[in-house]
């Protein structure tokens, strides 16, 4: 029985199947709460627990999928490159906004963690939670963070941004689409960006730019800490 599940094909096939179900459900229910990634994680955890399959067996295939994270992050460069004209036109507000946003995110998380008396490893896991997952993980891991907590916090933050972005734009009276787009991208990375694209072309482009730039700035900040 054991050998059946230690093949790398098992982990890969299970991941693809669970993610497929997640995408289908997401399309049907059209709610940002039904994030395909969250659905896939819940399904796989359930399968592993019910059939008593050790996590290590699943992860033989999982590690192969992990290998694609670095090239996927590198491809954010393509997103920046295709929007280079907007970047040149608005470089100052983009850099100022993303810099201040990244600092506000890390600062507020650090303060709140202190306030709740959370330990160092949880604080390190949460600090980069506003940037896109591959960058957040590569910041949290060497700092002594717990990677899955980072992943869950990042996705949860993205979903929050996706749901509340229109409301926040109204509350804070953000009429400028450049400001709105950058704020969405800085606070809730790729998941928020999918909402920003719905709001408008400028919002979407700005939000997409903010993902890569906030990621870079957050890396620089975390090196200083």
């Amino acid at each position, binding site marked *: 029985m054991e050998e059946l599940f230690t093949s790398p094909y098992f982990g890969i096939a299970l991941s693809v199947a669970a993610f497929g179900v997640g995408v289908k459900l997401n399309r049907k229910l059209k709610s940002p709460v039904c994030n395909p990634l969250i659905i896939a994680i819940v399904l796989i955890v359930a399968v592993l627990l019910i059939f008593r399959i050790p996590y290590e067996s699943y992860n033989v295939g999982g590690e192969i999928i992990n290998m694609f994270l*670095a090239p996927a992050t590198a491809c954010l460069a393509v997103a920046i490159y295709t929007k280079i004209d907007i970047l040149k036109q608005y470089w100052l507000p983009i850099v100022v906004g993303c810099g201040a946003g990244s600092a506000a995110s890390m600062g507020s998380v650090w303060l709140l963690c202190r306030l709740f008396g959370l330990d160092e490893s949880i604080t390190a896991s949460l600090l980069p939670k506003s940037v896109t997952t591959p960058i957040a993980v590569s910041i949290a891991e060497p700092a002594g963070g717990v990677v899955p907590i980072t*992943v869950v916090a990042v996705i949860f933050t993205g979903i929050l941004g996706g749901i509340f*972005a229109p409301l926040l734009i109204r509350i804070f009276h953000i009429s400028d689409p450049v400001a709105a787009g950058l704020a969405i991208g800085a606070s809730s990375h790729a998941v928020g960006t999918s909402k920003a694209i719905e709001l408008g072309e400028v919002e979407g482009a700005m939000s997409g730019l903010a993902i890569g730039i906030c990621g870079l700035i957050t890396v620089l900040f975390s090196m200083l800490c």
Partner: protein
Amino acid sequence: MKIIKQIGILFAVCWISELIESALPFSFPASVIGMGLLLICLLTGFLKVEHIQEKADFLMENMAFFFVPAGVSIINYFDILKTAAVQLVIICVISTVITFAVTAFCVKFTVRLMNRRKK
């Protein structure tokens, strides 16, 4: 062959960034070095977007899928989650709102300053 070539180019970029990472005296994520390296290649015209377009679209459109295994490893950390779940939710909500507001207002302020200077 097209896709294989594109995979080859991207993996080569990632491999070179890992080499750079290990040569650097301080720790800097290889994936972010890869992003910078790729951007430089595109800006200098060493690589054209067409060289990697399909593979890049494939990776970025399916970005979430590649995090499935990383997320599943939460199974090993249920204890930590149980003790701090409420705090984690509160932290995420508050800091997301703060980040949003600070970014939006800083951009608004900078754009206003730029416009004033132009006049």
